[in-house]
């Protein structure tokens, strides 16, 4: 085997041939004490990339994070145009508008936009969540100029032609048909519909309904775009092989002319009143597994309790050794994985515990879920378990900033929720300050088994009797949209 570098001399001592040297190596190795894990040196000092910001004349905020290891750049244009803005009669409008940005822009038609992005080796994405829209490119540094030209066309000069709106509408209609066949997708749509209700900005399907899609007119898209795609509420985050001055020059040349406009305030809907615990059953005949979602409305991302919630969720269902996964997967083998999360949202998000479990163990799985979700409230978390969770969160932090897309995701979170830009400088001390009392306090405050919405997508004929026998609440029957069956 080829050996280069400083260790060039070593293979003579430990490589295959000589008996004596091999013996020496083995003797050395035989001294290993395997009875306890090695004592580790102290963890490396935290050294995260720094975020710098500038504001352009038209109110647009630019944020830059320099990372020079690999010549790539990640650019994210964040716009305050999320699906919480969807009109009541047009669910799916925000995601549809985001998708339409790429269907012809500037001088290029839809396929030419795609062709140009591919030619540049740029991953071009335009999407919307409930809280905002993002247009992004991830591209080699040497093609950054062209990629930014294309991105500016997509964000500032989308064509929204009639024919492309019609084409996109047809495609989305077909995708909605496909979505019904996918039990996980059905659960992910039904759960928020049930938790938030149709009147709440988070309660409708992100990608709309059949009827709303069929009725989507070009003018709705144009109006939505004109209202919300404005620089005042927008931010451009650039992470990678650039510096601030260069980024500022590149962005000002392309986005400096973005026309100002007042964006309506984000809807401030109150969370719906919690309903009594119930099981919502969505029938999927023949399903090999039941897809389970258990939860209710949670806190907004900006709650001061977020640090304690981070620790709580790591203990409960945020990591492989978390309680839910250890119980449902590693102790019982009911599932390939069981997890939980508090969704990070501008308004109250949702708490959800989730798994796909073998059909025959649906009731047993619900028992274990509810047991763990009650235990985390009723019993203080043991010190070792708390320490493990805090270490996992704090010591793993540097790894999250290793890649440009990873760092972009972390910094985007700060910008999206208006968190302080030095957030991560204090993150570790805040996490380390969380006590067992804190964990129990936020568990009791933000996990409320009396008001769980338990959504199960599975084979009703196989699972209904077992679920009824649990006596954990009435069973309601819902369709694939989470709506009452008429």
């Amino acid at each position, binding site marked *: 085997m080829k050996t280069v570098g400083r260790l060039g001399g070593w*293979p003579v001592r430990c490589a295959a041939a000589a008996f004596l040297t091999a013996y020496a190596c083995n003797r050395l190795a035989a001294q290993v004490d395997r009875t306890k894990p090695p004592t580790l040196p102290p963890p490396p000092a935290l050294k995260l990339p720094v975020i710098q910001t500038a504001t352009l004349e038209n109110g647009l905020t630019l944020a830059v994070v320099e990372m020079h290891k690999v010549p790539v750049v990640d650019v994210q244009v964040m716009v305050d145009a999320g699906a919480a803005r969807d009109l009541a009669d047009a669910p799916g409008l925000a995601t549809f508008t985001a998708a339409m940005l790429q269907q012809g822009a500037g001088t290029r038609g839809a396929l030419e936009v795609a062709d140009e992005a*591919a030619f540049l080796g740029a991953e071009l994405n335009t999407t919307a969540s409930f809280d905002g829209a993002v247009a992004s490119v991830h591209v080699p540094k040497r093609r950054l100029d062209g990629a930014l030209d294309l991105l500016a066309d997509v964000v500032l000069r989308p064509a929204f032609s009639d024919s492309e709106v019609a084409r996109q509408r047809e495609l989305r209609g077909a995708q909605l048909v496909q979505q019904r066949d996918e039990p996980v997708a059905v659960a992910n749509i039904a759960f928020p519909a049930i938790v938030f209700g149709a009147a709440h900005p988070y309660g409708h399907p992100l990608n709309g309904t059949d009827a709303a899609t069929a009725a989507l007119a070009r003018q709705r898209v144009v109006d939505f775009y004109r209202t919300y795609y404005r620089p005042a509420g927008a931010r451009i985050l650039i992470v990678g092989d650039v510096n601030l001055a260069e980024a500022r020059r590149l962005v000002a040349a392309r986005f400096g002319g973005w026309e100002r406009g007042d964006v309506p305030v984000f809807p401030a809907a109150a969370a719906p009143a919690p309903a009594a615990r119930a099981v919502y059953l969505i029938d999927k005949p023949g399903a090999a597994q039941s897809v389970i979602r258990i939860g209710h409305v949670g806190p907004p991302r900006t709650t001061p309790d977020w640090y304690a919630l981070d620790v709580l969720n790591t203990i409960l269902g945020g990591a492989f050794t978390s309680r839910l996964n250890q119980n449902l997967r590693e102790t019982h083998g009911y599932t390939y994985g069981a997890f939980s999360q508090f969704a990070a949202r501008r308004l109250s998000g949702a708490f959800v515990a989730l798994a796909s479990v073998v059909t025959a163990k649906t009731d047993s799985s619900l028992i274990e879920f509810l047991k763990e979700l009650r235990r985390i409230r009723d019993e203080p978390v043991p010190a070792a378990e708390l320490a493990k969770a805090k270490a996992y969160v704090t010591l793993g932090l540097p790894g999250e900033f290793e890649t440009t897309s990873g760092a972009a995701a972390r910094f985007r979170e700060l910008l999206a929720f208006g968190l302080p830009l030095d957030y991560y400088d204090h993150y570790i001390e805040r996490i380390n300050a969380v006590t067992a009392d804190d964990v129990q306090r936020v568990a009791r405050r933000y996990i409320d088994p009396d008001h769980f919405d338990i959504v199960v997508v599975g084979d009703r004929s196989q699972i209904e009797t077992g679920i009824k026998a649990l006596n954990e609440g009435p069973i309601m029957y819902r369709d694939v949209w989470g709506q009452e069956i008429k």
Partner: protein
Amino acid sequence: MPRNAAVLIALGLLSVGPTIRLPAQSLRVPYQTFTLPNGLQVILHEDHSVPVVAVNTWFHVGSADEQPGRTGFAHLFEHIMFMGSRHVPTGEFDRQLEAAGADNNGSTTEDRTNYYEDGPANALALMLYLDSDRMGFLLPEITPEKVELQRGVVENERRQSYENRPYGLADENILKRLYPSNHPYNWPVIGSMADLEAATIEDVRRFFQTYYTPNNATVAIAGDIAPREARRLAERYFGDIPRGPAVTRTPPPAVRLDADVYATLEDRVQLPRVYHAWHTVKAFADDDATLDVVANVLAGGRSSRLYRRLVYDLQIATDVVAFQDGGRIDGKFELSATARPGHDLAELHRVIDEEVKKLADEGPTPREVERAQNGFEAQFLSRLERVGGFGGKADQLNLYNYFVGTPDYFQKDLDRYRRVTRAAVQRAVRTYLVAPHRVVLSVVPQGKPELAVKAGATP
């Protein structure tokens, strides 16, 4: 998150190769390597940009090494590797790593099984301690109960990722028609439920003793390391594991189809989908990279030929996918498209054949080839951002080492794509997609076999 039967094939490592016009040394991943007396090869790569370390272990065994009646066993065994070893009680592997801020995972393909730990640089000794304990001292701790438990987990993985997922059983239905029953690629990595049920603790012992030996493994350590110290730790923890018997394999028979094979699978889907599959070439063989470019020209994103025809112009399909999947023993090219409501597979099938024939007759445009090369280049660069995980630098060093015999093959891999010409693309389409026979699998809604593509439907 955990322990998936990796289908890295299609989307991941092998189809992602680049073309780049940067200085050659930009793509060097400097490494050092040495082999312990027990045969374990270790590869070291320094990258101090972030204080993290990645330990990535490849065992040169995969589902292709399984015996009849035991499909899925290599992957089940991968799960059992996390169930504790002599000095590491059950559950401690994951707990100790998480308490050190580290993540871990494993995956299995037809050809290899890999495991990684990623975490802060100070956790290296712990990672090697844990990995070496299960390499050296797994067996005494494995009980029938532990096998039973992970059997349940893996069966749920099969349900979640294949049986309860629309079109999820297409792949195994293609494989068993593309390869004869005595060929090691005849069955899917996840295996069959019946075979998973049949696996015994005796199988675990035999498999471990045959394949989980230091001489059948390589360990790559990449990241913020001091090479001398990393070497000392590797020798310390792995040095006393005894060498095992050499692994011998009988080369499988060469395969080809003597006739087109048409098959139908009824599934819980509303929209039918058609799959085409052809035999091609192994990973890194001549034409492997060319076939990646072919896949890109035909169906790589919205600027591809089939997307334009099927999804954009004719609007008869919702999606179209194509990829070259080269393994150690053989390769295949797969192409699939899903019909829109109101359209049938015969329409899709006809257009696919037209476009494939057109590409064979006329070849690609210069822009199409360059565009594909640029895309590969970009993906390649982005992969160099990470030392760990599946597809990070440590994993990639192991991959190149196993498939082509040298860890730092990054630049040469890139060159394969750079060399692809229009003529090569045209010739590859003729050679692999037009001339030979293929498997055509229709996945249709239950009770509607009449929606399948019929034999001889091609003009």
